């Protein structure tokens, strides 16, 4: 085995000539005789052929993609700040033949898990016959008693599972843990793939790397086949944006073209599960849940859950909805099961596990307890019920028999807590190359692989989600649990693979599989996103108008500046700051709304909004009032219109877009009515008309249309009544009327909805006005009437 002290190998490409694998564990790149493994030769040759600059650029492209796409993980207890996903640029490469063997072994394991969980929620023969200790089940918080005796609608408990695997010292694969609750990571694997393709664009095409799209298509088709024959749909149930893997939920929903739903979007009505949409409640019969079961129904499961749907268990019990995976299947994740699966395989399948799992002993048995005690130095001892991945030490776990943190005696602890503990053998895992300091360096790794039940049986995703240790010192599996990086996994065939992709091209990324089904919550967020973005824009224009006048203003102020100061103050805009906090807050509100409907935006639109937020934050530190601030507002205005442009140019013109547009028009009409009421009067401060025209971004139009200096009549005509000026109130009332008339339920059998009637009334009122009749009191009334539309929209569509 090659050691670190070895001289450079002349028989290897120069990029790996001094790559030194760690002693005692296999390496994915190099075989035992120190040669590059066949599956890797092409990639290594490719990397070897690049200049150092080309290599860095290639790797940077992948990282850039993830940053632009906004890929992040949110970590609990970490200030809730999203952090970049650290991608190691070198994929982990596996030969297709070996992957096939792994797939067969894991399919057997998935079948075994299915039999076990079906028994635990059914006849309970395994316990009755003594193959599983009753207390392991009874004390397990994931054994959900309200689900005992409930048969899943699809006939299966498991449809999508993940396995954490690692290669042991003997070169074979070990299962480190089973993920059966709501495994995450498949979406990240997809994103990592997109990133690694960016790094190796030309190379990837001819590299015989198995594509991932086929796996997802088969899984999606499998889900669609589970729908009931009543026009019902498939949805993805997410705990929402505060969850650490929300990004992935939104990404997968967009990728598969499925509705992304939160518990609040769903309601149980006459025993059926329905999604609340702007077109009324619609049936759902398949839910791919990314929510832990205990949170799914506050009525019968965890009462404190605000993430679930009250009464969900009713339709589940009545087999009206298939949960992917069945509620309660998470019990299989507890560490204790790893102690019994080898035996259960012999009992249920009549043969040993095809892929062994990490050696585990349940301390409830006397002999097992003694074994754990005698071998504690080579084990992790921890909670039997913990669903944390094996070898991810959690609070109270004891590593290598070191009791110093606990203040307890090992023997006494094992005796007292026996039934609640397991011992797990510490294993060393293989290494794979990462790129560090300009060269390839080995890092211990493990891979999460995904398996879906399709119409042709279990399918293993030809790829996965690899995690690499932060350092190369400690090859034990434990070292991989914190820090480190992730990598794409390539399964390489000997023969060319067909092209395959489900991804839309950038620029047309807003995907809706089923127009007409817009969940009310999503509509609400889009409406408010439209409002907040427009509000921020208005605040920027007002700030710019003030700041650009500031240098010419005498110390005593002018009546216009004094009036403007009062107005800005009323709006909460503090002009002692160059970029005031209020603008930052409004943008934060927009980002928050957008975040809740992330599945509905293109990568570009999202990147531009994130860029706006970053720019405002950094400007707030440096920009000072005056010209500097006026210029800064110019930059921000270009950025925010960039976002609006991307959204309005790219978004599919259906209900979602309509709510966004209505929000924007409503906000703009209100803002303009407010501005005109304050500055559009004859007796207002001098320069008020010009201010209105400037803030209304209509300087050029005004000059062309009227060829005179601004007067009250020209200003009110252009900014309130002219239906052709996209800044006028009339224009936006037209827009609202048009969009509202196209929403579901705008009229029922010819009878207008309350909302339609209210919009029509405003429209009619405004049409008969002239600049002379539309005075300040009328503008104030108009502003109020438009404001009230929010309540009508809320009542009809969003509550």
């Amino acid at each position, binding site marked *: 085995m090659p050691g670190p002290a070895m001289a450079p190998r002349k028989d290897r490409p120069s990029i790996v000539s001094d790559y030194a694998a760690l002693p005692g564990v296999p390496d994915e790149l190099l075989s035992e005789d120190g040669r590059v493994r066949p599956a890797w030769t092409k990639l290594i040759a490719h990397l070897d052929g690049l200049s150092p600059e080309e290599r860095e650029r290639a790797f940077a492209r992948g990282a850039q993609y993830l940053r632009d796409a906004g890929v992040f993980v949110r970590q609990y207890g970490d200030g809730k700040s999203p952090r970049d996903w650290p991608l190691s640029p070198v994929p982990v490469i596996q030969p297709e033949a070996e992957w096939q063997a792994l797939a067969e072994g894991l399919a057997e394991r998935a079948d075994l898990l299915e039999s076990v969980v079906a028994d635990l929620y059914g006849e309970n023969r395994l316990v009755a*016959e003594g193959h599983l200790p*009753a207390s392991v089940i009874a*004390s397990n*918080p994931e054994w959900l008693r309200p689900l005992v005796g409930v048969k899943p609608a699809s006939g299966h408990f498991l449809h999508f599972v993940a396995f954490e695997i690692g290669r042991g010292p003997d070169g074979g694969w070990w299962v480190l843990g089973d993920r059966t609750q709501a495994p995450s990571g498949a979406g990240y694997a997809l994103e990592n793939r997109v990133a690694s393709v960016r790094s190796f664009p030309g190379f990837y095409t001819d590299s015989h790397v198995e594509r991932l799209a086929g796996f997802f298509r088969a899984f999606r088709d499998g889900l669609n086949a589970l729908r009931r024959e009543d026009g019902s749909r498939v949805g993805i149930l997410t705990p929402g944006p505060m969850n650490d893997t929300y990004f992935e939920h939104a990404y997968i929903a967009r990728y598969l073209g499925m509705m992304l739903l939160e518990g609040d979007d769903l309601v149980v009505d*006459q025993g059926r599960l329905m999604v609340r949409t702007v077109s009324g409640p619609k049936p759902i019969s398949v839910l791919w849940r990314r929510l832990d079961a205990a949170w799914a129904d506050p*009525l019968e499961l965890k*009462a404190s859950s605000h993430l679930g749907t009250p*009464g969900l268990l009713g339709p589940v019990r009545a087999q009206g909805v298939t949960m992917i995976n069945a509620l309660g299947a998470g019990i299989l994740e507890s560490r204790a099961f790893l102690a019994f699966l080898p035996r259960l395989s012999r009992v249920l399948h009549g043969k040993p596990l095809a892929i062994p799992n990490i050696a585990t002993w349940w301390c409830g048995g006397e002999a097992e307890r003694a074994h754990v005690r005698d071998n504690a130095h080579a084990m992790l001892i921890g909670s039997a019920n913990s669903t944390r991945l094996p070898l991810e030490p959690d609070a109270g776990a004891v590593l290598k028999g070191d009791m110093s943190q606990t203040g307890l005696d090992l023997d006494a602890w094992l005796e007292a807590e026996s039934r609640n503990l397991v011992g797990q053998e510490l294993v060393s895992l293989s290494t794979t190359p990462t790129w560090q300091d300009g060269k390839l360096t080995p890092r211990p790794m493990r891979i999460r692989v995904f398996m879906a039940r399709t119409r042709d049986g279990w399918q293993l995703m030809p790829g996965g989600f690899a995690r690499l240790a932060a350092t190369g010192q400690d090859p034990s599996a434990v070292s991989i649990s914190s820090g480190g990086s992730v990598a794409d996994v390539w399964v390489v065939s000997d023969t060319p693979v067909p092209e395959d992709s489900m991804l839309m091209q950038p620029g047309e990324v807003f995907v809706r599989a089923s127009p007409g089904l817009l969940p009310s919550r999503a509509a609400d967020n889009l409406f408010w996103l439209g409002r907040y973005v427009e509000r921020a824009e208005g605040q920027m224009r007002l700030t710019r108008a003030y700041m650009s006048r500031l240098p010419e203003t005498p110390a005593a102020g002018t009546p216009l500046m004094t009036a403007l100061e009062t107005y800005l103050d009323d709006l909460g805009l503090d002009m002692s700051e160059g970029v005031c906090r209020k603008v930052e807050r409004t943008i934060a509100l927009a980002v928050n709304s957008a975040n809740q409907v992330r599945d509905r935006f293109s990568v570009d639109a999202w990147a531009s909004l994130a860029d706006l937020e970053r720019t405002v934050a950094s400007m707030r530190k440096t920009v000072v009032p005056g010209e500097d601030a006026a210029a800064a507002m110019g930059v921000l205005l270009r950025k925010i219109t960039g976002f609006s442009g991307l959204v309005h140019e790219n978004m599919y013109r259906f209900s979602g877009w309509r709510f966004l547009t209505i929000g924007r028009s409503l906000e703009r009409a209100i803002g303009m009515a407010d501005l005109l009421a304050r500055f559009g009067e004859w007796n207002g401060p001098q320069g008020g008309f010009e201010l209105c025209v400037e803030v209304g971004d209509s300087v050029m139009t005004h000059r062309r249309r009227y060829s005179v200096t601004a007067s009250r009549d020209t200003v009110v005509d252009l900014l309130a009544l002219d239906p052709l000026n996209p800044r006028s109130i009339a224009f936006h009332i037209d827009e609202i009327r048009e969009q509202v008339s196209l929403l579901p339920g705008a009229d029922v059998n010819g009878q207008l909805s309350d909302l339609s009637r209210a919009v029509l009334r405003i429209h009619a009122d405004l049409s008969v006005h002239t600049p002379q009749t539309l005075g300040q009191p009328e503008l104030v009334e108009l502003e109020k009437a438009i404001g009230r539309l929010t309540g009508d929209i809320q009542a009809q569509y969003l509550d």
Partner: protein
Amino acid sequence: MRYDIKLTIDYIYESPAAGARQILHVMPLAIEGRQRVIAGSIHIEPKPAMRQDRRDFFGNDLTELAFTEPHSDITIVLKARVDVTGSAAPGSPSPDLPELARALDAQTDLGPRSPLHFLAASPYAEPVREIAVWARRHSPPGRPVADIVAGLGLTLHREMRFDAEATTVSTPAAEAFASRHGVCQDFTHIMIIALRSLGIPAGYVSGYLRTLPPPGKERLEGADAMHAWVSVWCGPETGWVEYDPTNAVFAGDGHIVVAHGRDYADVAPVRGAMRISGGQTTDQFVDVVPVNETVA
């Protein structure tokens, strides 16, 4: 002993509730050799859009309700006639702790009344170090389980002050224990935690108490609302016994069982989820009247 039971629960909302879904555990349970339900009915006002009566995992009767129309109050009325035919005091000698542990290890039953459900932590009965230390101090080794139950219950009763105002449904048992006061729920949860810490299976019983005591007896605490006490598994011979730590007695013919669970969360009289913007107030009235002293 035959009783007529009437329970009235009122909910009043500050602003109308748009939708509500609730599970009720209020109907007395039929238990062989302990109590018999002669008649029972639950009346709900306004009429729910959906009502379903079924059994839960532990074999309790429950009623699930859904309201779709906005409503500003709900009234639930239970009426039942029940014969209490036996007490829940230990009827035979019980084993000591090591023997109990061996009996538990031999259990392979996961049915509704298996003692194994009642050993692990549950939402309202998480382990509390101070309670475990206290339990150890007040349970001398070698004693039969039933004696440990009675001893701990009496000690708890002496140390705790019954105070209807001191705690709410959401007060953790640890807090009630630290200040040594609370209501029947707190007494019950503390005792459950204590017993489980010793390896003794202990559950939560929700039920009714006879409102007025028999002539010459003292009135029991907790008779004005639904009451709670502890059920304890004392080995395969003795089986389940019930102990009321609020009154320091084994449950007798004045205790009428509604539901068994691991703790309050499993058997709350009304468990529900609704969409309301304002607050709510609840009132509960219980009347348990003996019908005919001579009925067996």
